[in-house]
Protein backbone atom coordinates (compact mmCIF):
# COMPACT_ATOMS: atom_id res chain seq x y z
CA UNK A 1 0.00 0.00 0.00
CA UNK A 2 1.42 3.32 -1.13
CA UNK A 3 0.42 4.99 2.07
CA UNK A 4 3.47 6.75 3.42
CA UNK A 5 3.82 9.94 1.46
CA UNK A 6 0.04 10.34 1.35
CA UNK A 7 -1.01 13.91 2.01
CA UNK A 8 -3.27 14.64 4.98
CA UNK A 9 -5.10 17.89 5.61
CA UNK A 10 -5.54 18.37 9.35
CA UNK A 11 -8.25 20.86 10.33
CA UNK A 12 -8.71 22.05 13.91
CA UNK A 13 -8.88 25.52 15.48
CA UNK A 14 -6.72 24.50 18.43
CA UNK A 15 -3.02 25.01 17.57
CA UNK A 16 -1.79 22.68 20.31
CA UNK A 17 -3.78 19.90 18.63
CA UNK A 18 -2.67 20.58 15.04
CA UNK A 19 0.98 21.20 16.03
CA UNK A 20 1.36 17.97 17.93
CA UNK A 21 -0.81 15.78 15.72
CA UNK A 22 0.91 16.94 12.53
CA UNK A 23 4.31 16.13 14.02
CA UNK A 24 2.96 12.76 15.12
CA UNK A 25 1.50 11.95 11.67
CA UNK A 26 4.65 13.17 9.89
CA UNK A 27 6.73 10.80 11.97
CA UNK A 28 4.45 8.02 10.69
CA UNK A 29 5.47 8.97 7.14
CA UNK A 30 2.64 11.24 6.00
CA UNK A 31 2.83 14.75 4.59
CA UNK A 32 0.64 17.01 6.69
CA UNK A 33 -0.97 20.35 5.84
CA UNK A 34 -2.99 22.24 8.48
CA UNK A 35 -5.99 24.54 8.45
CA UNK A 36 -7.65 26.25 11.37
CA UNK A 37 -11.23 26.76 10.15
CA UNK A 38 -13.72 25.44 7.63
CA UNK A 39 -13.24 28.04 4.88
CA UNK A 40 -9.50 27.70 5.01
CA UNK A 41 -9.97 23.93 4.82
CA UNK A 42 -11.98 24.16 1.59
CA UNK A 43 -9.34 26.49 0.07
CA UNK A 44 -6.58 24.09 1.04
CA UNK A 45 -8.45 21.13 -0.44
CA UNK A 46 -8.53 22.95 -3.80
CA UNK A 47 -4.92 24.09 -3.51
CA UNK A 48 -3.07 21.02 -2.27
CA UNK A 49 -5.38 18.09 -3.20
CA UNK A 50 -4.95 16.01 -0.03
CA UNK A 51 -5.57 12.25 0.01
CA UNK A 52 -7.49 12.49 3.28
CA UNK A 53 -8.93 15.16 5.57
CA UNK A 54 -9.03 14.95 9.36
CA UNK A 55 -11.76 17.39 10.25
CA UNK A 56 -12.79 18.81 13.61
CA UNK A 57 -16.54 19.43 13.97
CA UNK A 58 -16.69 22.50 16.22
CA UNK A 59 -14.83 25.36 14.54
CA UNK A 60 -15.34 29.06 13.93
CA UNK A 61 -16.38 30.40 10.51
CA UNK A 62 -17.64 27.16 8.99
CA UNK A 63 -17.88 24.03 11.07
CA UNK A 64 -16.61 20.61 10.06
CA UNK A 65 -20.04 19.28 9.29
CA UNK A 66 -20.70 22.09 6.81
CA UNK A 67 -17.34 21.43 5.13
CA UNK A 68 -18.24 17.76 4.78
CA UNK A 69 -21.68 18.57 3.36
CA UNK A 70 -20.14 21.00 0.91
CA UNK A 71 -17.63 18.40 -0.27
CA UNK A 72 -20.20 15.66 -0.70
CA UNK A 73 -22.68 17.92 -2.47
CA UNK A 74 -19.97 18.66 -5.03
CA UNK A 75 -19.71 14.92 -5.58
CA UNK A 76 -16.29 14.67 -3.98
CA UNK A 77 -15.41 11.30 -2.43
CA UNK A 78 -12.36 12.70 -0.67
CA UNK A 79 -11.95 10.53 2.45
CA UNK A 80 -12.85 12.38 5.65
CA UNK A 81 -12.34 11.45 9.30
CA UNK A 82 -14.49 13.60 11.59
CA UNK A 83 -13.34 14.52 15.08
CA UNK A 84 -16.68 14.64 16.84
CA UNK A 85 -17.38 16.63 19.94
CA UNK A 86 -18.23 14.77 23.09
CA UNK A 87 -21.63 14.93 24.67
CA UNK A 88 -23.74 14.70 21.55
CA UNK A 89 -25.42 11.34 21.50
CA UNK A 90 -26.82 11.66 17.98
CA UNK A 91 -23.66 13.05 16.49
CA UNK A 92 -21.94 9.76 15.86
CA UNK A 93 -24.79 8.31 13.84
CA UNK A 94 -25.07 11.60 11.94
CA UNK A 95 -21.36 11.57 11.10
CA UNK A 96 -21.74 8.33 9.15
CA UNK A 97 -24.97 9.45 7.56
CA UNK A 98 -23.46 12.65 6.29
CA UNK A 99 -20.72 10.75 4.60
CA UNK A 100 -17.75 10.77 6.93
CA UNK A 101 -15.55 7.75 6.31
CA UNK A 102 -14.88 7.41 9.98
CA UNK A 103 -15.04 9.41 13.16
CA UNK A 104 -13.30 9.66 16.50
CA UNK A 105 -14.60 11.07 19.76
CA UNK A 106 -12.43 13.65 21.47
CA UNK A 107 -10.34 13.17 23.52
CA UNK A 108 -8.86 10.32 21.48
CA UNK A 109 -5.57 8.46 21.54
CA UNK A 110 -3.42 9.73 18.61
CA UNK A 111 -2.46 6.12 17.88
CA UNK A 112 -6.14 5.38 17.29
CA UNK A 113 -6.23 8.28 14.80
CA UNK A 114 -3.25 6.77 13.01
CA UNK A 115 -5.04 3.41 12.82
CA UNK A 116 -8.15 5.13 11.39
CA UNK A 117 -6.06 7.07 8.85
CA UNK A 118 -4.38 3.87 7.64
CA UNK A 119 -7.67 1.98 7.36
CA UNK A 120 -9.49 4.77 5.54
CA UNK A 121 -6.64 5.33 3.05
CA UNK A 122 -6.41 1.61 2.39
CA UNK A 123 -10.14 1.41 1.73
CA UNK A 124 -10.07 4.49 -0.49
CA UNK A 125 -7.38 2.94 -2.66
CA UNK A 126 -9.32 -0.31 -2.95
CA UNK A 127 -12.67 1.00 -4.10
CA UNK A 128 -13.46 3.91 -6.39
CA UNK A 129 -16.78 4.70 -4.74
CA UNK A 130 -16.81 5.61 -1.08
CA UNK A 131 -19.11 3.40 0.97
CA UNK A 132 -19.53 6.16 3.50
CA UNK A 133 -21.69 8.29 1.22
CA UNK A 134 -23.65 5.35 -0.17
CA UNK A 135 -27.24 5.25 1.02
CA UNK A 136 -27.72 1.60 0.17
CA UNK A 137 -25.10 -1.00 0.97
CA UNK A 138 -25.38 -4.49 -0.40
CA UNK A 139 -23.63 -7.68 0.53
CA UNK A 140 -25.94 -10.12 -1.24
CA UNK A 141 -28.36 -11.29 -0.01
CA UNK A 142 -28.03 -8.68 2.77
CA UNK A 143 -29.09 -5.12 1.99
CA UNK A 144 -28.78 -2.17 4.35
CA UNK A 145 -30.94 0.85 3.53
CA UNK A 146 -29.35 3.60 5.54
CA UNK A 147 -31.99 6.25 4.90
CA UNK A 148 -34.87 4.01 5.94
CA UNK A 149 -32.77 2.54 8.79
CA UNK A 150 -33.71 -0.94 7.64
CA UNK A 151 -31.86 -4.13 6.81
CA UNK A 152 -33.24 -6.92 4.64
CA UNK A 153 -32.01 -10.45 4.06
CA UNK A 154 -33.24 -11.97 0.78
CA UNK A 155 -35.95 -9.31 0.77
CA UNK A 156 -37.14 -10.11 4.29
CA UNK A 157 -36.94 -7.19 6.76
CA UNK A 158 -34.79 -8.01 9.79
CA UNK A 159 -36.03 -7.16 13.27
CA UNK A 160 -33.08 -5.47 14.91
CA UNK A 161 -32.63 -3.18 17.89
CA UNK A 162 -31.42 0.32 16.93
CA UNK A 163 -28.01 -0.45 18.36
CA UNK A 164 -27.64 -3.71 16.46
CA UNK A 165 -28.55 -1.83 13.27
CA UNK A 166 -25.93 0.87 13.96
CA UNK A 167 -23.41 -1.88 14.64
CA UNK A 168 -24.24 -3.56 11.33
CA UNK A 169 -23.93 -0.20 9.58
CA UNK A 170 -20.49 0.42 11.05
CA UNK A 171 -19.29 -3.08 10.13
CA UNK A 172 -20.66 -2.88 6.58
CA UNK A 173 -19.15 0.55 5.93
CA UNK A 174 -15.76 -0.79 7.13
CA UNK A 175 -15.59 -4.14 5.35
CA UNK A 176 -12.58 -6.43 5.54
CA UNK A 177 -11.19 -4.39 8.42
CA UNK A 178 -10.36 -5.80 11.83
CA UNK A 179 -12.34 -3.69 14.30
CA UNK A 180 -11.65 -4.08 18.00
CA UNK A 181 -14.48 -4.27 20.52
CA UNK A 182 -13.19 -1.06 22.10
CA UNK A 183 -13.37 0.72 18.76
CA UNK A 184 -16.93 -0.54 18.19
CA UNK A 185 -17.91 0.68 21.65
CA UNK A 186 -16.50 4.11 20.98
CA UNK A 187 -17.94 4.33 17.48
CA UNK A 188 -21.42 2.87 18.03
CA UNK A 189 -22.13 3.30 21.74
CA UNK A 190 -19.98 6.39 22.18
CA UNK A 191 -19.21 5.02 25.62
CA UNK A 192 -16.36 3.07 26.91
CA UNK A 193 -16.77 0.98 30.04
CA UNK A 194 -15.09 -2.10 31.41
CA UNK A 195 -17.99 -4.50 30.98
CA UNK A 196 -18.83 -2.91 27.63
CA UNK A 197 -16.92 -5.34 25.48
CA UNK A 198 -19.51 -7.91 26.50
CA UNK A 199 -22.24 -5.57 25.35
CA UNK A 200 -20.61 -5.69 21.93
CA UNK A 201 -20.55 -9.49 21.98
CA UNK A 202 -24.24 -9.56 22.94
CA UNK A 203 -25.18 -7.35 19.97
CA UNK A 204 -22.99 -9.33 17.59
CA UNK A 205 -24.82 -12.47 18.76
CA UNK A 206 -28.14 -10.69 18.10
CA UNK A 207 -26.96 -9.73 14.59
CA UNK A 208 -25.77 -13.25 13.86
CA UNK A 209 -29.09 -14.73 14.97
CA UNK A 210 -30.94 -12.32 12.69
CA UNK A 211 -28.57 -12.98 9.79
CA UNK A 212 -28.53 -16.75 10.36
CA UNK A 213 -24.75 -16.46 10.56
CA UNK A 214 -22.74 -19.17 12.33
CA UNK A 215 -19.90 -17.98 14.58
CA UNK A 216 -17.77 -20.96 13.46
CA UNK A 217 -18.35 -20.60 9.73
CA UNK A 218 -19.54 -17.05 9.28
CA UNK A 219 -20.76 -15.72 5.97
CA UNK A 220 -20.80 -12.09 7.16
CA UNK A 221 -19.32 -11.35 10.57
CA UNK A 222 -16.10 -13.06 11.49
CA UNK A 223 -14.68 -13.22 15.03
CA UNK A 224 -10.98 -12.47 15.24
CA UNK A 225 -10.11 -14.32 18.43
CA UNK A 226 -8.92 -12.05 21.19
CA UNK A 227 -9.06 -8.98 18.96
CA UNK A 228 -12.46 -8.12 17.58
CA UNK A 229 -14.65 -8.55 14.53
CA UNK A 230 -14.41 -8.24 10.78
CA UNK A 231 -17.11 -7.98 8.11
CA UNK A 232 -15.73 -10.47 5.62
CA UNK A 233 -18.31 -10.59 2.81
CA UNK A 234 -17.79 -8.31 -0.22
CA UNK A 235 -19.75 -5.08 0.01
CA UNK A 236 -21.06 -2.72 -2.67
CA UNK A 237 -22.41 0.77 -2.22
CA UNK A 238 -25.10 2.50 -4.20
CA UNK A 239 -25.13 6.28 -4.35
Amino acid at each position, binding site marked *: MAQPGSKILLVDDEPSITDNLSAFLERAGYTVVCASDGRQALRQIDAVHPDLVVLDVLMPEMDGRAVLRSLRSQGSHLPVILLTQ*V*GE*AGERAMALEEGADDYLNK*PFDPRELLARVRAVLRRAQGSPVSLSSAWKITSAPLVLDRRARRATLSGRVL*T*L*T*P*KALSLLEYLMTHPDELITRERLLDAV*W*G*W*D*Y*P*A*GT*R*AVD*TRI*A*ELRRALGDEAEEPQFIETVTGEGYRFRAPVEGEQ
Partner: protein
Amino acid sequence: MRLRAALAGLPALIGLAGWLLLPRILRPIPILSIKIDFGMLSLVSGLLLSAALLAAAAARRRSGLDIARERNLQADSRRRFLRRLDHELKNPLTGIRAALANLEGAGTAGAAPAVLRDIQHQVERLTRLTAGLRKLADLEVIPLEYGEVDLGALLQETVDAVRAHPSGSGRDLRLVVPSVPWPLPRIVGDRDLLSLAFFNLVENALKFTSQEDTVEVRAMEQARHVQVEIADTGPGIPAEDLPRVFEELYRGSNARGSEGSGLGLALVRRVVERHEGEVTVRSRRDGPRGTVFVVTLPVSIRIPQQPRTRQS
Protein backbone atom coordinates in the same frame (compact mmCIF):
# COMPACT_ATOMS: atom_id res chain seq x y z
CA MET B 1 -48.58 39.10 50.92
CA ARG B 2 -50.06 41.16 53.75
CA LEU B 3 -52.19 43.18 51.33
CA ARG B 4 -53.52 39.97 49.82
CA ALA B 5 -54.49 38.64 53.28
CA ALA B 6 -56.30 41.92 54.04
CA LEU B 7 -58.15 41.70 50.73
CA ALA B 8 -59.14 38.14 51.52
CA GLY B 9 -60.76 39.40 54.75
CA LEU B 10 -62.85 41.97 52.86
CA PRO B 11 -65.80 39.70 51.97
CA ALA B 12 -66.11 38.75 55.67
CA LEU B 13 -66.24 42.44 56.65
CA ILE B 14 -68.85 43.23 54.04
CA GLY B 15 -70.84 40.24 55.22
CA LEU B 16 -70.62 41.44 58.82
CA ALA B 17 -71.80 44.90 57.77
CA GLY B 18 -74.70 43.33 55.90
CA TRP B 19 -75.67 41.30 58.95
CA LEU B 20 -75.57 44.42 61.17
CA LEU B 21 -77.23 46.85 58.78
CA LEU B 22 -79.79 44.86 56.84
CA PRO B 23 -83.17 44.93 58.58
CA ARG B 24 -83.38 41.83 60.76
CA ILE B 25 -86.35 40.38 59.03
CA LEU B 26 -87.07 37.12 57.38
CA ARG B 27 -88.07 37.63 53.81
CA PRO B 28 -90.09 34.98 52.07
CA ILE B 29 -88.82 33.82 48.69
CA PRO B 30 -91.91 33.35 46.63
CA ILE B 31 -90.96 30.36 44.53
CA LEU B 32 -89.22 28.26 47.20
CA SER B 33 -91.69 29.04 49.92
CA ILE B 34 -88.88 29.33 52.48
CA LYS B 35 -87.80 32.36 54.36
CA ILE B 36 -84.23 33.61 54.38
CA ASP B 37 -82.50 35.93 56.78
CA PHE B 38 -80.57 38.09 54.29
CA GLY B 39 -78.40 39.59 56.99
CA MET B 40 -77.27 36.15 58.15
CA LEU B 41 -76.84 35.04 54.51
CA SER B 42 -74.49 37.94 53.80
CA LEU B 43 -72.45 37.17 56.93
CA VAL B 44 -72.13 33.43 56.24
CA SER B 45 -71.30 33.80 52.56
CA GLY B 46 -68.80 36.59 53.36
CA LEU B 47 -67.07 34.41 55.96
CA LEU B 48 -66.93 31.41 53.61
CA LEU B 49 -65.52 33.48 50.76
CA SER B 50 -62.88 35.00 53.01
CA ALA B 51 -61.89 31.59 54.34
CA ALA B 52 -61.51 30.27 50.80
CA LEU B 53 -59.42 33.27 49.73
CA LEU B 54 -57.20 32.96 52.81
CA ALA B 55 -56.67 29.24 52.22
CA ALA B 56 -55.73 29.88 48.59
CA ALA B 57 -53.29 32.64 49.61
CA ALA B 58 -51.69 30.35 52.20
CA ALA B 59 -51.32 27.53 49.67
CA ARG B 60 -49.75 29.90 47.18
CA ARG B 61 -47.37 31.16 49.80
CA ARG B 62 -46.43 27.63 50.82
CA SER B 63 -45.74 26.49 47.26
CA GLY B 64 -43.73 29.68 46.76
CA LEU B 65 -41.66 28.75 49.79
CA ASP B 66 -41.28 25.19 48.49
CA ILE B 67 -40.03 26.46 45.15
CA ALA B 68 -37.62 28.83 46.88
CA ARG B 69 -36.36 26.01 49.09
CA GLU B 70 -36.01 23.70 46.08
CA ARG B 71 -34.09 26.43 44.24
CA ASN B 72 -31.79 26.89 47.20
CA LEU B 73 -31.15 23.15 47.37
CA GLN B 74 -30.38 23.06 43.67
CA ALA B 75 -28.10 26.07 43.93
CA ASP B 76 -26.35 24.41 46.87
CA SER B 77 -25.82 21.15 45.05
CA ARG B 78 -24.62 23.04 41.96
CA ARG B 79 -22.10 24.95 44.07
CA ARG B 80 -20.94 21.74 45.71
CA PHE B 81 -20.61 20.09 42.32
CA LEU B 82 -18.55 22.96 40.87
CA ARG B 83 -16.32 23.03 43.93
CA ARG B 84 -15.70 19.31 43.62
CA LEU B 85 -15.15 19.55 39.87
CA ASP B 86 -12.61 22.32 40.43
CA HIS B 87 -10.84 20.09 42.91
CA GLU B 88 -10.92 17.07 40.60
CA LEU B 89 -9.42 19.12 37.77
CA LYS B 90 -6.81 20.86 39.89
CA ASN B 91 -5.07 17.76 41.12
CA PRO B 92 -4.19 16.18 37.79
CA LEU B 93 -3.36 19.58 36.31
CA THR B 94 -0.98 20.33 39.17
CA GLY B 95 0.57 16.92 38.59
CA ILE B 96 1.02 17.66 34.88
CA ARG B 97 2.50 21.11 35.53
CA ALA B 98 4.93 19.67 38.04
CA ALA B 99 5.91 16.95 35.58
CA LEU B 100 6.40 19.47 32.76
CA ALA B 101 8.54 21.71 34.96
CA ASN B 102 10.55 18.68 35.92
CA LEU B 103 10.95 17.68 32.28
CA GLU B 104 12.21 21.14 31.34
CA GLY B 105 14.77 21.08 34.10
CA ALA B 106 15.88 17.53 33.39
CA GLY B 107 16.51 18.18 29.69
CA THR B 108 17.18 14.89 28.00
CA ALA B 109 18.45 13.20 31.14
CA GLY B 110 17.23 9.82 32.37
CA ALA B 111 14.28 11.22 34.38
CA ALA B 112 12.17 11.70 31.24
CA PRO B 113 10.45 8.30 30.95
CA ALA B 114 9.20 8.41 34.56
CA VAL B 115 7.97 11.98 34.14
CA LEU B 116 6.18 11.12 30.92
CA ARG B 117 4.53 8.20 32.72
CA ASP B 118 3.27 10.61 35.38
CA ILE B 119 1.82 12.91 32.74
CA GLN B 120 0.24 9.95 30.99
CA HIS B 121 -1.29 8.83 34.28
CA GLN B 122 -2.81 12.24 35.03
CA VAL B 123 -4.10 12.56 31.49
CA GLU B 124 -5.82 9.21 31.85
CA ARG B 125 -7.43 10.49 35.05
CA LEU B 126 -8.77 13.56 33.27
CA THR B 127 -9.98 11.40 30.39
CA ARG B 128 -11.88 9.17 32.81
CA LEU B 129 -13.42 12.22 34.43
CA THR B 130 -14.63 13.75 31.16
CA ALA B 131 -15.92 10.37 29.99
CA GLY B 132 -17.90 10.06 33.22
CA LEU B 133 -19.29 13.59 32.94
CA ARG B 134 -20.37 12.88 29.39
CA LYS B 135 -22.13 9.68 30.40
CA LEU B 136 -24.01 11.58 33.11
CA ALA B 137 -25.03 14.29 30.65
CA ASP B 138 -26.00 11.69 28.03
CA LEU B 139 -28.10 9.82 30.56
CA GLU B 140 -30.34 12.86 30.98
CA VAL B 141 -31.38 12.77 27.34
CA ILE B 142 -30.64 9.54 25.50
CA PRO B 143 -33.62 7.35 24.76
CA LEU B 144 -33.29 4.01 26.52
CA GLU B 145 -33.21 0.93 24.35
CA TYR B 146 -35.85 -1.15 26.06
CA GLY B 147 -35.95 -4.87 25.86
CA GLU B 148 -36.66 -7.87 28.05
CA VAL B 149 -33.68 -8.40 30.30
CA ASP B 150 -32.80 -11.62 32.10
CA LEU B 151 -31.25 -10.07 35.22
CA GLY B 152 -29.83 -13.40 36.40
CA ALA B 153 -27.81 -13.80 33.18
CA LEU B 154 -26.88 -10.13 33.25
CA LEU B 155 -25.56 -10.35 36.81
CA GLN B 156 -23.61 -13.51 35.98
CA GLU B 157 -22.03 -11.69 33.05
CA THR B 158 -21.25 -8.66 35.19
CA VAL B 159 -19.66 -10.73 37.94
CA ASP B 160 -17.59 -12.61 35.33
CA ALA B 161 -16.48 -9.30 33.82
CA VAL B 162 -15.41 -7.94 37.21
CA ARG B 163 -13.57 -11.17 37.99
CA ALA B 164 -11.65 -10.82 34.73
CA HIS B 165 -10.78 -7.24 35.67
CA PRO B 166 -7.56 -6.58 37.66
CA SER B 167 -9.60 -5.28 40.61
CA GLY B 168 -11.47 -8.59 40.87
CA SER B 169 -8.70 -11.15 40.62
CA GLY B 170 -8.33 -13.37 43.66
CA ARG B 171 -11.31 -11.81 45.43
CA ASP B 172 -14.13 -13.63 47.22
CA LEU B 173 -16.99 -12.55 45.00
CA ARG B 174 -20.25 -14.49 45.16
CA LEU B 175 -23.46 -14.43 43.20
CA VAL B 176 -26.78 -15.77 44.41
CA VAL B 177 -29.64 -15.85 41.91
CA PRO B 178 -32.79 -17.84 42.69
CA SER B 179 -33.73 -20.65 40.32
CA VAL B 180 -36.15 -22.65 42.49
CA PRO B 181 -39.15 -22.93 42.37
CA TRP B 182 -39.06 -20.39 39.55
CA PRO B 183 -36.34 -18.15 38.16
CA LEU B 184 -36.28 -14.37 38.45
CA PRO B 185 -38.86 -12.70 36.24
CA ARG B 186 -37.47 -10.94 33.19
CA ILE B 187 -37.62 -7.19 33.55
CA VAL B 188 -38.01 -4.46 30.95
CA GLY B 189 -35.01 -2.22 30.60
CA ASP B 190 -31.90 -1.15 28.74
CA ARG B 191 -29.50 -4.05 29.05
CA ASP B 192 -26.32 -2.10 28.42
CA LEU B 193 -27.14 0.61 30.95
CA LEU B 194 -28.20 -1.88 33.62
CA SER B 195 -24.98 -3.77 33.06
CA LEU B 196 -23.04 -0.53 33.52
CA ALA B 197 -24.88 0.19 36.78
CA PHE B 198 -24.26 -3.26 38.28
CA PHE B 199 -20.65 -3.28 37.11
CA ASN B 200 -20.09 0.03 38.89
CA LEU B 201 -21.69 -1.24 42.09
CA VAL B 202 -19.69 -4.47 42.19
CA GLU B 203 -16.44 -2.74 41.28
CA ASN B 204 -17.15 -0.10 43.89
CA ALA B 205 -17.67 -2.78 46.55
CA LEU B 206 -14.33 -4.39 45.66
CA LYS B 207 -12.55 -1.05 45.62
CA PHE B 208 -13.53 -0.07 49.15
CA THR B 209 -12.90 -3.45 50.75
CA SER B 210 -9.73 -5.43 51.30
CA GLN B 211 -8.48 -8.72 49.89
CA GLU B 212 -9.91 -10.69 52.85
CA ASP B 213 -13.41 -9.25 52.56
CA THR B 214 -16.34 -10.91 50.86
CA VAL B 215 -18.62 -9.30 48.28
CA GLU B 216 -21.96 -10.94 47.66
CA VAL B 217 -24.38 -10.08 44.87
CA ARG B 218 -27.87 -11.45 45.40
CA ALA B 219 -31.09 -11.03 43.54
CA MET B 220 -34.63 -11.74 44.67
CA GLU B 221 -38.19 -11.21 43.56
CA GLN B 222 -40.30 -8.84 45.65
CA ALA B 223 -43.94 -8.53 44.57
CA ARG B 224 -43.76 -6.77 41.18
CA HIS B 225 -40.14 -5.83 41.68
CA VAL B 226 -36.73 -7.39 41.48
CA GLN B 227 -34.30 -6.47 44.19
CA VAL B 228 -30.56 -6.77 43.75
CA GLU B 229 -28.26 -6.37 46.73
CA ILE B 230 -24.53 -5.79 46.50
CA ALA B 231 -23.24 -6.53 49.98
CA ASP B 232 -19.72 -6.42 51.38
CA THR B 233 -17.93 -7.07 54.68
CA GLY B 234 -15.80 -3.92 54.31
CA PRO B 235 -15.18 -1.15 56.84
CA GLY B 236 -18.56 0.49 56.18
CA ILE B 237 -19.40 4.06 55.24
CA PRO B 238 -19.40 6.78 57.96
CA ALA B 239 -22.95 7.86 58.82
CA GLU B 240 -22.28 11.46 57.77
CA ASP B 241 -21.21 10.30 54.29
CA LEU B 242 -24.19 8.00 53.69
CA PRO B 243 -26.70 10.59 52.41
CA ARG B 244 -24.13 11.96 49.99
CA VAL B 245 -22.59 8.91 48.35
CA PHE B 246 -24.78 9.17 45.25
CA GLU B 247 -23.84 12.79 44.58
CA GLU B 248 -21.63 13.62 41.63
CA LEU B 249 -17.93 13.74 42.47
CA TYR B 250 -18.61 13.16 46.16
CA ARG B 251 -15.73 11.39 47.82
CA GLY B 252 -16.29 9.99 51.29
CA SER B 253 -13.67 10.53 53.97
CA ASN B 254 -12.34 6.99 53.36
CA ALA B 255 -12.30 7.41 49.59
CA ARG B 256 -9.70 10.15 49.30
CA GLY B 257 -6.93 9.50 46.90
CA SER B 258 -8.57 6.45 45.47
CA GLU B 259 -8.69 6.19 41.72
CA GLY B 260 -11.92 6.38 39.82
CA SER B 261 -13.94 9.23 38.44
CA GLY B 262 -16.06 9.89 41.55
CA LEU B 263 -19.08 9.58 39.27
CA GLY B 264 -19.75 5.84 39.45
CA LEU B 265 -22.55 5.88 42.02
CA ALA B 266 -24.13 9.01 40.52
CA LEU B 267 -24.32 7.07 37.23
CA VAL B 268 -25.86 4.10 39.04
CA ARG B 269 -28.54 6.31 40.56
CA ARG B 270 -29.36 7.92 37.22
CA VAL B 271 -29.63 4.58 35.40
CA VAL B 272 -31.86 3.13 38.12
CA GLU B 273 -34.07 6.23 38.21
CA ARG B 274 -34.54 6.10 34.46
CA HIS B 275 -35.83 2.56 34.98
CA GLU B 276 -38.31 3.91 37.55
CA GLY B 277 -36.40 2.07 40.24
CA GLU B 278 -34.64 3.06 43.42
CA VAL B 279 -31.18 2.58 44.87
CA THR B 280 -30.46 2.84 48.58
CA VAL B 281 -27.56 2.08 50.86
CA ARG B 282 -27.18 0.93 54.44
CA SER B 283 -23.96 0.47 56.29
CA ARG B 284 -22.51 -0.49 59.67
CA ARG B 285 -19.13 0.50 61.03
CA ASP B 286 -19.00 -1.99 63.93
CA GLY B 287 -20.50 -5.28 65.06
CA PRO B 288 -20.96 -7.27 61.90
CA ARG B 289 -19.75 -4.41 59.74
CA GLY B 290 -20.22 -3.83 56.05
CA THR B 291 -22.26 -2.09 53.40
CA VAL B 292 -25.28 -3.11 51.35
CA PHE B 293 -26.43 -1.29 48.23
CA VAL B 294 -29.99 -2.22 47.28
CA VAL B 295 -31.31 -1.70 43.76
CA THR B 296 -35.06 -2.15 43.33
CA LEU B 297 -36.37 -2.32 39.78
CA PRO B 298 -39.99 -2.72 38.68
CA VAL B 299 -40.63 -5.81 36.55
CA SER B 300 -42.43 -3.76 33.93
CA ILE B 301 -42.37 -0.04 33.31
CA ARG B 302 -44.26 2.32 31.07
CA ILE B 303 -42.23 2.57 27.89
CA PRO B 304 -42.39 6.06 26.45
CA GLN B 305 -43.46 5.45 22.83
CA GLN B 306 -40.67 3.23 21.67
CA PRO B 307 -40.89 -0.12 20.01
CA ARG B 308 -40.25 -2.92 22.43
CA THR B 309 -37.56 -5.25 21.27
CA ARG B 310 -36.39 -8.51 22.60
CA GLN B 311 -32.89 -8.95 23.92
CA SER B 312 -31.44 -12.12 25.32
